[in-house]
């Protein structure tokens, strides 16, 4: 393989693809895209294409998994075999198992699980095309699928990663930046409670850099949060306009 000596960030601080250090990838979100699921949503963020669907709350099967005082959130994060450069086997990898767990844990605090004892809420996140930051985009779109299913929540959970590439702290790393960069910090956030519900990090950062990365990620989260709200309202706003004519 030929060695590509291309720098990821040029001398003016512009990243490959033209973004500044604190810019998100172009993002498009749609809510209510599948008609069988109780709730669904779809996100495109740069080259990421991720679909989330919710079934429930409904009776748990097998019965012994039922919790007496709350609903059980089950989450499956899965990547399609064709979603990455080298075909990925459809069997769940260890990474998918870990991500399913941390994603579930990032969304649980926002859901009023205690309202529906002995039921389960099943959340499916399918990554149709992956280019870095899929767990964050997955969380952002999953929160919308839950809202679309009419499941009551304290707040919308939103997620975004920040990291370090060629010595600079940047927001929303794509796959190349993540692989070649020095650190990646995925983070999920519930703005009303000022609560960070997912936090991971790999790479190397000093304490000061880490603090800056968190703040950068929170800025990205706030922008995505507004997009989430717009996407939820979009379905109803369009109808209101049509009706006025």
């Amino acid at each position, binding site marked *: 393989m030929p060695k590509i000596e291309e720098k990821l960030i040029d001398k003016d601080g512009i990243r490959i693809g033209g973004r500044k250090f604190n810019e998100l990838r172009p993002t498009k979100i749609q809510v209510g895209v599948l008609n069988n699921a109780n709730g669904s949503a779809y996100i495109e963020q740069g080259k990421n294409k991720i679909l989330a669907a919710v079934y429930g709350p409904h009776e748990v099967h097998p019965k012994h998994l039922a919790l007496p005082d709350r*609903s059980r959130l089950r989450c499956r994060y899965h990547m399609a075999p064709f979603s990455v450069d080298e075909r990925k086997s459809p069997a769940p990898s260890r990474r998918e198992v870990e991500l399913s767990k941390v994603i579930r844990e990032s969304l649980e605090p926002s859901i*009023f699980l205690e309202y529906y004892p002995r039921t389960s809420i099943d959340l499916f996140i399918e990554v149709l095309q992956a280019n870095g930051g899929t767990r964050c985009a997955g969380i952002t779109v999953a929160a919308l699928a839950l809202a679309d299913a009419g499941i009551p929540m304290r707040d919308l959970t939103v997620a975004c990663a920040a990291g370090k590439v060629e010595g600079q702290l940047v927001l929303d790393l794509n796959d190349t930046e993540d692989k070649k960069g020095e650190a990646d910090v995925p983070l999920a956030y519930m703005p009303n409670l000022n609560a960070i519900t997912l936090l991971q990090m790999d790479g190397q950062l000093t304490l000061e850099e880490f603090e800056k990365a968190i703040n950068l990620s929170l800025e990205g989260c706030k922008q995505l949060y507004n997009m989430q709200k717009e996407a939820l*309202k979009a379905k*109803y706003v369009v109808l209101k306009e049509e009706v006025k004519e």
Partner: protein
Amino acid sequence: MPTFYERRQLVTPGDLVAEGNYIAGENTFKENEKLYATRVGLVEYEERRVSVVALKAFYIPTIGDTIIGKVTDVTMGGWILDINAPYLALLRASDVMERSYRPQRDELSSIFDVGDLVIAKIVSYDRTRDPLLTVREPGLGKITRGQILEITPTKIPRIIGRKGSMIGVIKRETGCHILLGQNGLVLISGKNLEDEQLAVMAIRKIENESHTSGLTDRVTDMLKKEKEKEGETKNA
């Protein structure tokens, strides 16, 4: 004590609706004097009570509700029904049979079989058990004819309209008998298929435009126009 949204404004989960000495109504929750929406819906104020009329929610069984359910299983003691809720509902054999003998399973499926639609009332329900149904009252029992429509349960009140105005319009213009299950299932039975379809159209329209105003008039207009069209095709 500020409120941040006007009546019937659209909010999403986590939106701060009001702050101060308000009471948290439906689809809201209060934390530290701040009142937030928990679902996508329209804000409603009733004196100090702030609530959100959800545009999409699922049915939670309430004692006394009349619902339409589908039989999914026949057991030794009765029937299990899907009532479009997070929980399956139970109808005991003893509710239908007066005598206290032990019925054979065959006898039970001859009364209600898997796939049958039943109008029933919720007799009991709490957090520890599935809801229990009864078909003992008049008007309850197996559905033998008509069409079934499934809509978001929160829109049932909109279909009824203020003092029954909306549902009255539909019944009048289509001549159909309409039964609204609180769980979002609607039974329409009319003299013919066209009339029933008309009623379905009207209800779907209300469901899609429930968050707008002037709906009753628009529905009336639509029904009148459709009937004219039908009249023309018949005469052509």
